[in-house]
């Protein structure tokens, strides 16, 4: 199907990346300049433009690290540290990634089950939606420590509480998307099933579920991004409260200024890439469905 392995994307991607790097350098100079000037003032010296450019590139605690500083740090934390060390970026990335993925998987499953219930049960339909929306209005920064502390108190600790925060955030887009998706088949398709005297289960698997898949993949894209936010945000409000396990150990996570941000970007791009492949197939199918039509000419 694809005639070129890169799909004709190489040049545009390179162009965009180059543009971003250039803008980044400019922004680094602009944002690190105040501190550089401040330092020069304290030493009672003046800064020429070349000196300014030079000093903004090598600051130890810059406002915006320059690309080469980030690259050096990445190299250091990925390659120079053993993977199991707490200073390794790979280790930190895995902590965030594992919580994200588990939370996302649980959230998707729960969201799908909830949607199936809402679509097939009138009482559930009328009562559940307001509650589901209400859960999303509670700030995650308030909920997250509560979940962790409560679960630790009953002995559940480690990966699961962190994953559950991601679950809490990610089930909502999946549930909402799936409800729409399961209700998307048009009346003619449903009538067709009726003429075959198909059972509810047959109608579900042969009609409603396939119709809902495009909506599911779109929702999953949103859910994975939100799930990542949940996995990153949760350690923030937790104070150094000693406890047997998870929270204390992982509180030391953000050990370098770059690691959380970069592990976030890394896992996000991984997830979007993986989800994107799947979604591409469904997107093609969806496009054909809408463009090819049902024979209306």
């Amino acid at each position, binding site marked *: 199907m694809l005639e070129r392995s890169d799909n004709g994307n190489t040049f545009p991607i390179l162009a965009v990346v180059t543009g971003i790097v250039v803008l980044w350098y400019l922004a680094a100079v602009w944002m690190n300049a105040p501190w550089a000037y401040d330092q020069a003032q304290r030493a009672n010296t003046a800064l020429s433009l070349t000196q300014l450019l030079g000093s903004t590139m090598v600051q130890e605690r810059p406002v915006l690290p320059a690309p080469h500083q980030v690259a050096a740090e990445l190299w250091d934390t990925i390659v120079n540290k053993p993977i199991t060390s707490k200073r390794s970026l790979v280790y930190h990335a895995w902590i965030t990634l594992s919580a994200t993925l588990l939370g996302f998987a649980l959230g998707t499953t729960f969201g799908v089950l909830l949607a199936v219930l809402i679509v097939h049960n009138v009482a559930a339909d009328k009562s559940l939606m307001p509650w589901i929306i209400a859960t999303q209005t509670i700030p995650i920064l308030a909920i997250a420590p509560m979940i962790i502390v409560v679960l630790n108190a009953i002995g559940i600790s480690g990966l699961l509480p962190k994953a559950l925060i991601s679950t809490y955030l990610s089930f909502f887009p999946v549930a909402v998307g799936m409800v729409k998706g399961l209700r998307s088949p048009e009346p*003619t*398709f449903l*009538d*067709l*099933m*009726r*003429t*075959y*005297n*198909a059972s509810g289960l*047959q109608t579900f698997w*042969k*009609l409603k579920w*396939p119709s809902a*898949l495009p909506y599911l993949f779109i929702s999953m894209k949103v859910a994975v991004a939100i799930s990542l936010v949940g996995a990153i945000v949760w350690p923030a409000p937790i104070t150094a409260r000693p406890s047997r396990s998870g929270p204390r150990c992982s509180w030391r996570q953000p050990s370098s200024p770059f690691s959380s941000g970069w592990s976030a970007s890394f896992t996000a791009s991984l997830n979007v890439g993986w989800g994107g492949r799947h979604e591409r197939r469904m997107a093609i*199918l969806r496009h*054909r*469905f809408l*463009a*090819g*039509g*049902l*024979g*209306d*000419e």
Partner: protein
Amino acid sequence: MLAPDTQTTSVVSAKGLSLTYRTHQGHVHALSNIDLDIGSHEFVSFIGPSGCGKTTFLRVIADLEAPTSGTISVNGMTPKEAREARAYGYVFQAPALYPWRTVEKNIALPLEIMGYPREERQERIGRLLDLVDLAGFGKKFPWQLSGGMQQRASIARALVFDADLLLMDEPFGALDEIVRDHLNEQLLKLWERTGKTICFVTHSIPEAVYLSTKIVVMSPRPGRVTDIIISPLPKERPLDIRETPEFLAVAHRIRQGLRAGHSYEE
């Protein structure tokens, strides 16, 4: 009116059938006192303007709508029992093929639901694809087919489980005239080969006259039958028959029936 014919059994029998929708604008009499008998092996066309109840009548036969009064029996059973016994195949105006399934799999859909074993499914699908001239297109997806081909696939799907009654709701309405002529011919040949009873809803007077053994002329507000015409045309019908005087006489009678039902007025 219809002369009693002891040779054919009654496939659809309606007496005093009425269907009224209650809307906030008042009552809509979609069907009003329909008395009709359809015997086996007949090709019956329902013709009339929009709102005359022809599609509604078809849907009542299919148990997709419920009448508000009167009786109707399909194959001697209630429409619900007939639907549960899978006594008919329904062809909609849009082909209604599932876009995520190939043509083969679409035709297989009723067979999967009804629990036919795989070998029999394969055999039936092959036979039906040949019957509607779509051999070799089984592995294609619906969007890869033209409108006429999609509709043929839809007809194949309606025939695949050997129901004796075929209900068709303006199946060629969305197609251009040339494709329509071709499909009309094919449908007639199919009818002769399979001997099914066909109820065919259409807007087109020439189509109704060309295809049917019996034509039911309907009018709106309230939906009722204004005329039932037994076609004098012979069984062998090349497309040229549409220029013969007998054909035009039947078409003229249909127009008279439509005029009597005030179909040509606002």
